[in-house]
């Protein structure tokens, strides 16, 4: 009788802790996904300033600058929701990444531009921005993988239904063009 009672209590405690663990991971995953948005928003806000900073010096590369501004405005406009959202957002953001890297390549071509302080700052800010987005995605993928593994592993999988745990998708690069992103050397001492 006593053994049975102890057993029930132990199982009960385990269910509670497994359930709470899953819920915590679920919320971490959601939060990590939102962090990507935060970083994308930061990039959108940064671009107008950056473009203004180089506009005067780069009058002759108007088309490159305009491509960046256009891609940025396109990315800001995307306001989709639902399953299509991730795809649309990533398409617009990929286009923006492409335009930005073309701008950086252009800057590389003008050593006298690089010599002025503004451009050095611009490069640092841009590479940092791209890094932030990449690291936010990495965190999301790591957290989501942890969440997916946990809910599929025995014995936690027994509680997965109770916690409404469902497999979450990882952030993948769909566009082949971004896979082959041009390597821009931004390393500065």
């Amino acid at each position, binding site marked *: 009788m006593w053994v049975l009672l102890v057993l029930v209590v132990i199982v009960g405690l385990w269910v509670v802790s497994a359930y709470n663990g899953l819920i915590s991971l679920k919320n971490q995953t959601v939060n990590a996904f939102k962090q990507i948005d935060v970083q994308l928003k930061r990039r959108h806000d940064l671009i107008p300033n950056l473009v203004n900073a180089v506009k005067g010096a780069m009058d002759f590369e108007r088309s490159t600058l305009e491509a960046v501004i256009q891609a940025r405005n396109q990315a800001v406009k995307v306001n989709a929701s639902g399953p299509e959202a991730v795809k649309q957002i990533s398409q617009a953001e990929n286009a923006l990444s492409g335009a930005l890297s073309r701008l950086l390549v252009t800057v590389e071509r003008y050593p006298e531009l690089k010599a002025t302080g503004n451009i050095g700052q611009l490069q640092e800010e841009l590479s940092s921005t791209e890094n932030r987005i990449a690291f936010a995605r*990495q965190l999301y993928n790591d957290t989501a993988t942890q969440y997916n593994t946990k809910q599929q592993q025995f014995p936690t999988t027994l509680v997965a239904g109770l916690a409404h745990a469902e497999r979450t998708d990882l952030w993948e690069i769909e566009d082949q063009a971004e896979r082959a992103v041009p390597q821009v050397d*931004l390393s500065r001492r």
Partner: protein
Amino acid sequence: MTSPDGNLFQQQEANRRRTTWLVIGFVLFFAWLGFGGDYVWALQGHHPFPWVGILLTTVAIITAWYTYKTGPEKVLWATGAQELIDPKTDAERQVANVVDEMAIAAGIPRPRLWIIPDDDPNAFATGHDPRDSHIAVTLGLLTICNRDELQAVIAHELGHVKNLDVRLMTTLAALVGAVLLVREGMGRMMRGGGIPTRGGGGRKGKSAGPLIAILLALWIISWILAPLVTQLLALAVSRRREYLADAMSAQFTRNPLALASALEKIEGAAAPTTAIKSGAAHLCICDPLGRRLTNREGWLADRFATHPPMSTRISRLKGMGYAQLKKEGGSFTSSVSG
């Protein structure tokens, strides 16, 4: 031992498990020091109130609480570090950005960043928990590291922050301190005859059994060796946490080879970091004082170091880099196999 190979997640897991065992060993030894003696006392027929255990525990809690409360401020103040709030130069902007990026990768709030005016490359982390943490880097580090290496070093420090290593190491240091303090006090009381009952087993009518005598002897020997044993255990935990922080850095940057090359550069810079005192040594990227100790090969030198040997750390990082390259199907070039 953890295997030197394996990807970064396997290495993290192995180091976590080993820390757990070390901490369990530490706590058991500590309990034996405190309550073991009381137990022997009770077996001898004395009143069973656990004086030594309660005294030791109280002293430990007070020291832990005190160091925990005053620790971070003291450490930072002692190094002469200045907080970087408004970055001005390119190097400052870069390090501020790198800290931002790594905080995102680690998924923790951005720590406060401090610059230490010292030419030797080093860095350390401190603070109570991830919500209130500090990272300090020396000027020397900013000058010798490129962006990737700087990122890897900052990621190592954020690994300490995320693993709550400050809390763990402060607690262990406080326990070591408590053992020293109580041992000193007991020695004094014994010499001054403050406790007349101590050693007075013969006063009792019945003779103590051999088991009790052995236990008592063991307990006294434990106390004689206690400072050494607790110190060695704490250092073993510290080295484990270094390996773990290296593996965390590899997770955050996905570039273990950058940390390997940063460590090589840091090792190459000869001068000791005079600004960082020994109190923060276990949270630095490399030992600021005992560099000769961490470099010297040999079993004994290894036991007394806060950090594992540089060569082992570098070879493990390269192992992680190799595992990563193998997964990605890349080729392992000779430049990283050294």
